[in-house]
């Protein structure tokens, strides 16, 4: 049980980064509580204690798993290239872990139990150590169980070694998240038993009558029939909605009115992080345009917009310059529009920005089902024959590697749909934003500020299908859940390859690759935006080029927590030069272990110094 005494004990655990006695870290407290700008806590040594805490959200008490006693956890800030030490103390009765999202750490420091390291056992400590050659806005969170849903997340900022090209008078971090008072295992179990359990926007008989009146009975019947034949629903956009969630900005619900203050004419930098478990947000500040200057921590050429969709685990840095001395609403509306969270950006404390109305819920179309024949790209039609895909000629690029991953995934019980028509949707702003009366950002507008470090043409192409069965709530890559895979996805050190993600489902998935930045193929530019997480829309075909220069095993998964929990995860193994192509050389459980001097067998949690392998980008 968690008592106030326990809470204080956790907070005062003798750590460098101790949270104050108030329930929230200084940087997340609103202007009312004394926060007029970001709280810079620099250092190279950090202490993090993971434990249970009672949290107060919108007047109700919840039970959270926290870092240093607060939700979100403490802001960690250090400088590019500096070696940092992070000592993590696990006071829980279960394993925990911390993954440094977007950071190019040595792979055994990446924090994924079962892939990077064994995890941090209950009542024990683990020390992470790394120096990373990057700067920007990132975050860190648990990769154990469903702890990320329970509050185990926090922001992380790395300041550039040289002067920051982005100059601002003031800076705020906005951590967007979703809070469930129900235990996440219960939420997941409900989804397993009734996939539409949280969907209160389903089509009713009343909708049928209205559609029939507006569009005619015939077209309405055939529309219902086409969806019914597939046993899918066009209102199925988010698995978990406001029916279960209270959306938060910096741990504050709308009622808690987190406030950021500004002086008129100031340029303010907002570092926006989507640290939620299952919610893709549409972020806007009605009446105040934003200039996007960074995506996923890396600088982009400035682009002005009024709204953008931010997928789970993505980050965006924007600049705003409010010239009117009034309260502006910082609005994060969930993609399916069942709820939103609003914070205030105002010239003084005590103001509450006018919250907008929730907008009309978006509805999927045949295009999202992969049935949009009108925009069929006949170049990609050739790809419909799964058997022959391996040898497909992509024009200037041919698949030369005979052991390349083919996408001939099992059309098994875990796959409910294979989108017939997969199109590029990189220039679309995101579900629901096609028809808003203002500008909305699309990936195709992003260009890296500096030219891409590796502009070689990819040597091979790999296609990975995003698959799933909504009714059974099974999610996978290429029809195979992580619990069923027999080998990882292999990259070879130094190679440049193109990965094409094909979304066979009609859900939007934010896909994350650990350990490296990939170059999103928006066109043939050498300033492709570099990201670690990318939203793949329903029936979309999206490509990224990646240089596999960071040796190690890296998690590759959908960042919707319950999709990952249901199996939508794989391992990308970047094999060092000289290693065999075949995955299971001498490492299978049954094969005799290669002769190894017993001294080489590492003790638990003692790092073997292989740092030089881990730092390349």
């Amino acid at each position, binding site marked *: 049980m968690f008592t106030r005494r326990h809470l204080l004990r956790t907070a005062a655990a003798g750590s460098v980064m101790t949270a104050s006695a108030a329930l929230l870290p200084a940087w997340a407290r609103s202007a009312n509580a004394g926060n007029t700008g970001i709280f810079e806590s620099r250092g190279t040594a950090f202490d993090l204690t993971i434990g249970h805490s009672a949290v107060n959200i919108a007047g109700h008490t919840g039970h959270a798993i926290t870092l240093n006693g607060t939700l979100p956890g403490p802001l960690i800030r250090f400088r590019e*290239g500096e070696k940092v030490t992070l000592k993590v103390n696990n006071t829980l009765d279960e394993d925990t872990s911390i993954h440094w999202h977007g950071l190019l750490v040595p792979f055994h420091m990446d924090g994924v139990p079962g892939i990077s390291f064994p995890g941090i056992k209950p009542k024990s400590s683990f020390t992470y150590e790394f*120096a990373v*050659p*990057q700067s920007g806005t990132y975050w860190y969170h648990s990769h154990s169980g469903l702890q990320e849903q329970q509050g185990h997340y926090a922001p992380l900022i790395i300041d550039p*070694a*040289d*002067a920051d*090209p*982005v*100059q*601002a008078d003031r800076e705020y971090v906005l951590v967007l998240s979703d809070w469930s008072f129900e235990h996440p295992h219960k939420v997941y179990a409900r989804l397993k038993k009734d996939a539409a359990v949280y969907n209160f926007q389903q089509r009713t008989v009343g909708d049928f009558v209205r559609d029939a009146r507006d569009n005619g009975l015939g077209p309405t019947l055939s529309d219902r029939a086409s969806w019914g034949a597939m046993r899918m629903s066009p209102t199925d956009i988010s698995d978990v909605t406001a029916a279960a969630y209270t959306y938060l900005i910096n741990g504050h619900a709308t009622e808690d009115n987190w406030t950021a203050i500004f002086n008129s004419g100031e*340029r303010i*930098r907002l570092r926006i992080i989507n640290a939620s478990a299952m919610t893709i947000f549409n972020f806007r500040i*009605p*009446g105040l*345009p934003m*200039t996007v*200057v960074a995506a996923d921590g890396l600088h982009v*050429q*400035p*682009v*002005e*917009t*009024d709204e953008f969709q931010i997928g789970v685990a993505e980050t965006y840095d924007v*600049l705003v*310059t409010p010239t*009117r001395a*009034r309260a502006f*609403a910082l*609005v994060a509306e969930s993609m399916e529009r069942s709820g939103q969270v609003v914070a205030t950006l105002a010239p003084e404390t005590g103001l509450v*920005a*006018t*919250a*907008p*109305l929730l*907008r*009309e819920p978006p509805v999927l179309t045949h295009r999202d089902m992969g049935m949009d024949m009108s925009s069929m790209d006949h170049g990609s039609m050739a790809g419909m024959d799964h058997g022959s895909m391996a040898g497909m000629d992509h024009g200037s690029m041919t698949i030369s590697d005979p052991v390349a991953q083919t996408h001939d995934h099992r059309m098994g019980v875990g796959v409910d749909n294979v989108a017939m028509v997969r199109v590029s949707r990189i*220039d679309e702003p995101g579900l629901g934003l096609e*028809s*808003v*009366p*203002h*500008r909305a950002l*699309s990936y*195709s*507008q992003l*260009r890296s500020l*500096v*030219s*891409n*470090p*590796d502009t070689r043409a990819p040597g091979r192409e790999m296609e990975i299908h995003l698959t799933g069965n909504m009714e059974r709530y099974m999610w996978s890559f290429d029809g195979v859940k992580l619990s069923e895979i027999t080998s990882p996805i292999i990259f070879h050190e130094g190679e440049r390859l193109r990965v094409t993600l094909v979304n066979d489902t009609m859900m939007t998935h934010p896909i994350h690759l650990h350990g490296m930045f990939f170059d999103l193929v928006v066109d043939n530019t050498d*300033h492709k935006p570099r990201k670690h997480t990318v939203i793949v829309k329903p029936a979309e075909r999206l490509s990224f080029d990646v240089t596999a220069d960071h040796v190690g095993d890296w998690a590759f998964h959908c960042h919707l927590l319950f999709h990952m929990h249901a199996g939508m995860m794989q391992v990308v193994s970047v094999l060092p030069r000289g290693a065999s192509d075949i995955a299971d050389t001498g490492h299978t459980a049954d094969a005799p272990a290669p002769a190894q001097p017993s001294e080489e067998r590492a003790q638990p949690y003692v790092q073997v110094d292989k*740092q*030089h392998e881990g*730092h*390349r*980008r």
Partner: protein
Amino acid sequence: MKLSHLIIAAAFGFSAAPALALESNNMAAEMDHSGACGLPMGEGKVAGLDVKASKVTLNHGPIAALGWDAMAMDFKVAKGIDLSAFAEGDRVHILFVEDTKSASYRIEAICALDASEGLYEACMGKMHETAMAITAKSGKACEMSGMDHGSMPEMDHSAMKSMDHSQMPGMKTDQATKPSETEKISGDHSQH
């Protein structure tokens, strides 16, 4: 001009090229604001807002197309308009559409006149698109003085969003560090 400054300006210029070719900067100024596709437009000042009820009270100027004098009036706004983007005292430009059921006019699109250039132009562009969509739906041809509608559909509003970055706030374009930043990110391993 430093070389780095030139490179950055050239990069921005390159990304803005399609928009510049359309000279869309001047489109707003050339537009006849008395009407769009035959639908009435007007200007006014926001006197009051009710976001929850989707209503706005406007002190509007004379609207010749409707034969209205300058006055203060309440209007319902169309679904999808985010009234929280406006505040009391904002000068706005409005597109009216007749609501035949209640024999009154509602606001179909509304743009703040004093908003930043990019926001204003994008908003006005959407306003004209809305006007065209409505006239198309009712089967009428779009009439608008001073505009060649042959080129309207080709106005690529997505290019407008990324134009003219040399004025963009917050980006230092004359840093000597720029070239070395490129070097550093592309694989300087001396840090390890």
